[in-house]
């Protein structure tokens, strides 16, 4: 069975591979795909789920092709088999132009296909929930965008709602069916705002406004975790947020605005970036006479350089 019969091996391999690949892809698409994280709470979350599933549907046949071939070869051409022919060397075994060109062409086509798909899926949904820096070039089509500022600090996220008097809260509430622009910034080291079920992730850098868009769908709960190592309590830097119906959101926002009014006036005026003093309380890292130095460590301290 080892002499000649190249087409015989190819045919068997092809059949095993095709059956496996199609069967698994079908099972995956219908049974597993809809449950793949991060779910469907927002447009970007379902986008991420869709992209992951498509990649998996492409990836599995590729992996199966390699594995099926390996398993086949390891069994059929195992050296302990008594009737195995001696392998043939020579130029034929050193390379085969058709196979090599075919391999390169196939992988190139797959890779370029994946790239085009990924680029479309990145640009069309306005950055797909990732941090787009201070001046996003891919923005949502919706004209009603709710801005929410996310402030990372060691070790808690706080949230400011500029459209509600700029109040700041340690709770993240988001209205359903709304396009949201998260403006992510930090008051000290790098954090990463990862609203898992919302399909949003954007690094929080000091004095940088990193914008990420998403559009919420139905109400639900979500988790926010810090996604970039930020020191001692990085692992404890999480909180739970909610997507609530619009009306409920307005009630919450207005009551919180009212309740925290006493402290809101102590906060610095809302801005997309703040310039925290690099020194801590009572002086510190840089000598006092080095600009920019301010006796006021509050995050809104204006820089003498400006």
């Amino acid at each position, binding site marked *: 069975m080892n002499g000649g019969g190249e087409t015989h091996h190819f045919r068997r391999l092809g059949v095993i591979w095709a059956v496996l690949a199609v069967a698994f892809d079908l099972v995956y698409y219908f049974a597993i795909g809809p449950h793949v994280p991060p779910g469907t709470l927002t447009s970007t979350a379902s986008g991420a789920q869709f992209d992951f599933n498509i990649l998996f549907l492409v990836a599995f046949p590729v992996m199966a092709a390699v594995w099926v071939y390996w398993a086949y070869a390891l069994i059929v051409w195992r050296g302990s088999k008594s009737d195995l022919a001696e392998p043939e060397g020579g130029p034929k075994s050193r390379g085969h132009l058709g196979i090599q060109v075919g391999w390169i062409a196939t992988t190139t086509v797959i890779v370029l296909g994946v790239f085009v798909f990924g680029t479309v899926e990145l640009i069309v949904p306005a950055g797909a929930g990732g941090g787009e820096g201070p001046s996003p070039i891919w923005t949502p089509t919706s004209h009603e965008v709710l801005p929410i500022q996310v402030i990372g600090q060691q*070790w808690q996220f706080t949230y400011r709602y500029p459209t509600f008097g700029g109040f700041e809260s*340690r709770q993240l509430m988001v209205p359903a069916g709304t396009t949201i622009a998260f403006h992510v910034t930090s008051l000290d080291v790098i954090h990463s705002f990862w609203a898992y079920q919302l399909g949003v992730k954007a690094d929080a850098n000091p004095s940088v406004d990193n914008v990420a868009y998403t559009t919420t769908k139905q109400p639900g709960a979500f988790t926010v975790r810090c996604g970039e190592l930020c020191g001692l309590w990085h692992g404890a830097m999480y909180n739970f947020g909610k997507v609530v119906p619009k009306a409920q959101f307005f009630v919450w926002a207005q009551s919180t605005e009212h309740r925290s009014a006493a402290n809101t006036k102590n906060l610095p005026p809302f801005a997309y970036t703040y310039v925290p003093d690099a020194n*801590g*309380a009572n002086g510190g*890292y840089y000598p006092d006479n080095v600009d920019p130095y301010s006796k006021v460590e*509050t*995050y809104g301290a204006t820089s003498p350089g400006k």
Partner: protein
Amino acid sequence: MGRGGRLAIIGALFAVAVGLVVFTVMAFLRSSPPTVDFTAGHQAGAPVDLTLQTVGSIGTGIHPSWVSYLTQTPGGQWVHTTLWDLPAHTRINVTVHQYDGGSPLRNQQYGQVTGTIGDDAILNGKSFTVINANNGNGVAHTFAIPTLGISVPLYANNGNGNLCAVAPCPTNSPHNIVRFSFMTPGPGQYPWQCFLPCGLGYLYGNGGPMQTIGYMDGFLKVVA
């Protein structure tokens, strides 16, 4: 030298090397401040008194210039630790003797009192809910348990006063007494920390004591 001898020398050197590495690693892994037990002899339903003090510099140990919290054991001893065993679902009455000077908060959001029973705290006998850290003496530290939503700013002493520079501080040093209460949740380990950038000499004031258990960070180890 025979082969046996050589093997013995190699083996011994190897054992010493491995021993040193393991010793270094384990000595580091196991280092931790002590835990103060508030559950021993605790009767269900009775509140627990937790007395703390904050000092401007601990004065001793490997980091003598760092700010720190100290804990008073039920026996009245001051211990340099921030780890407590506390009973679950119990009212904890916290008293903080605040001996440190102050500054503005990095984020004035933490000037509010949140999560305590009654959503307020008592400063030298007077109830308060917000401190504007940009006025007056400013805030020295905060006591915050982020996962429980608890945060209490600790009003500072006048920095021009003769502040205490040893630990534990003598009670005749200028200090503020802040009292508040909260309920412990179910069993678990809950991190608590300070949100004021008080790590003197560190970038953003958040290094050193701000990132070391036993100084400005600790655990509530709530046990059933």
